[in-house]
């Protein structure tokens, strides 16, 4: 064990960081693969079907088969497409979804880049992911794709505002932009996690997150009943798979952020409860974080199986006329609350 630690600390910093990046990115990719399977299975059971069950035991190898199939498909670039941007679109969609993981704390010491402005970094990066969709829509030189891109751009920009204000509330309550400090500020059991004092913000943030990832019921950017498949209608093979990966990686990211900012991240839910706290003291914090993320990911799938797609004007109304005023009111309310030092803020 000592030998291993010595070799690790002996490595150059760049190699260490690269190894950590691989340790974060590879599990995310695997999670994405099995999230697609989970989605098909969950929605299947909700609709009284079985879902994929042919490839491997109980269909467990289905995502691998899908990946191999997509990797060997031909990438078709439309004749009049703008080639450079057409290829850049999917790359730009995936890159921010992965880069944002740099500041996610998995446990108190387990964090790749413990930067001060972590929350701002995440907001800045996720706001950049819309470029992938716009590039794809425009470079495809197709009407369906362009319509999808325009819808998506307007939607993402609208919901980002409500999302940003919800995060302002989180940073007011946590007193920091650093994600680790935000989690530590929630210490003290389920009732002091920020979901309770910031309940409206939690709802606004999570629903805006669903809208930001263009998931059902906010998936008008794809809208297969109206515009075929929206911005990625011209994509095939691996370029299409990258959009898919980006969407699911973003879902996992939003779940992780919701767990960190409103549900105490790696903190145990039994904190402060006499007997249970001691019983569950051996559980590593990461397990709690992953459990919380799994709940939110399940919500994503559940939404998709339950709600019909919003009409476009309803999406805009929800974003601008419901979420935005709620956040704008909650900021002064929260300010007074913190200044007066009423529970749970001292």
């Amino acid at each position, binding site marked *: 064990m000592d030998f291993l630690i010595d070799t690790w600390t002996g490595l150059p910093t760049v190699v260490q960081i690269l190894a950590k990046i691989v340790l974060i990115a590879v599990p995310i990719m695997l999670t994405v693969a099995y999230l697609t399977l989970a989605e098909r299975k969950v929605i299947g059971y909700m609709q009284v079907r079985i879902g994929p069950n042919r490839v491997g035991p109980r269909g467990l190898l289905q995502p691998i088969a899908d990946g191999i199939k997509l990797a060997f498909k031909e990438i078709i670039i439309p004749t009049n497409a703008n080639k450079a*941007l057409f290829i850049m679109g999917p790359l730009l969609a995936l890159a921010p979804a992965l880069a944002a993981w740099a500041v996610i704390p998995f446990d108190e010491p387990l964090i790749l880049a413990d*930067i*001060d*402005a972590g929350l*701002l*970094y995440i*907001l*800045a*990066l996720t*706001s*950049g992911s*819309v*470029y992938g969709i*716009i*590039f794809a829509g*425009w470079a495809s030189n197709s009407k369906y794709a*362009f319509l999808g891109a*325009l819808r998506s*751009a*307007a939607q*993402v*920009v609208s919901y*980002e505002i409500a999302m*940003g204000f919800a995060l302002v509330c989180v940073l007011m309550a946590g007193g920091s*932009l650093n994600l680790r400090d935000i989690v530590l500020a929630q210490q003290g059991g389920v009732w002091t996690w920020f979901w309770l004092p910031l309940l409206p913000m939690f709802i606004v943030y999570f629903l805006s997150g669903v809208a930001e990832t263009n998931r059902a019921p906010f998936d008008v950017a794809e809208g297969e009943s109206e515009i075929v498949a929206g911005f990625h209608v011209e994509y095939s093979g691996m370029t299409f798979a990258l959009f898919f990966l980006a969407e699911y990686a973003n879902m996992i990211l939003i779940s992780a952020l919701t767990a960190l900012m409103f549900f105490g991240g790696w903190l145990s839910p039994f904190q402060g409860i006499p007997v249970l706290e001691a019983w569950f003291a051996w559980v590593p914090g990461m397990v709690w974080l992953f459990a919380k993320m799994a709940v939110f990911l399940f919500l994503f799938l559940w939404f998709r199986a339950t709600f019909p797609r919003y009409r476009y*004007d*309803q999406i805009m*109304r929800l974003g601008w006329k419901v979420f935005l005023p709620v956040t704008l009111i909650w900021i002064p309310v929260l300010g007074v609350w913190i200044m007066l030092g009423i529970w749970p803020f001292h």
Partner: protein
Amino acid sequence: MAIEPVIFWVFSTILVLSAGAVVTVRNPVHAVIFLVLAFFTSAAIWILLEAEFLALALVLVYVGAVMVLFLFVVMMLDINVAPLREGFVRNLWVGIPVLAIVIYELWVVVGEKQFGLDKVAAPAGHAADYSNTKELGGILYTVYMYPFELAAVILLVAIVAAIALTLRRRPQTRYQDPAQQVLVKRGDRVRLVKMAAEKKQ
């Protein structure tokens, strides 16, 4: 070897090249994309200056929101740039001297005579617990309180003006009332009719 100069030169090269491409590329959409790249790389250079709040705010506001809408508009407009460039060579004899004067003026104002290392020492790195966000917040809400509030009010006036320009009731516009839509009952839309069965003749 220190890594900062490498990062600086790489990013400033990209910045200058992309800024040049903004005005030289033919396709307006490409020009906007190069502008985005220029914003992004200048944000990276700001991070090198330990101004992470400004850098991230630049990415968030300009790259993430303003340029998206800008790109949106440029893509929709579908501008044909060929006629716009017709006089390029003809006007070059005006353009080049103007460019030379601008460069000279810039050099006079921000050249090494004013900002050389003998005039302004290289800034020392901050301590590990230095937080750019905290410092900015402290200064903004104490020393620059009134200018900050003033800027906010001016922006608010601009928002109100923009909304006032578009907010006019036109008689032919039809509005929806979501509350009414939600309150609709089945009986409002469907009428079940009971009829006696008819016999075929």
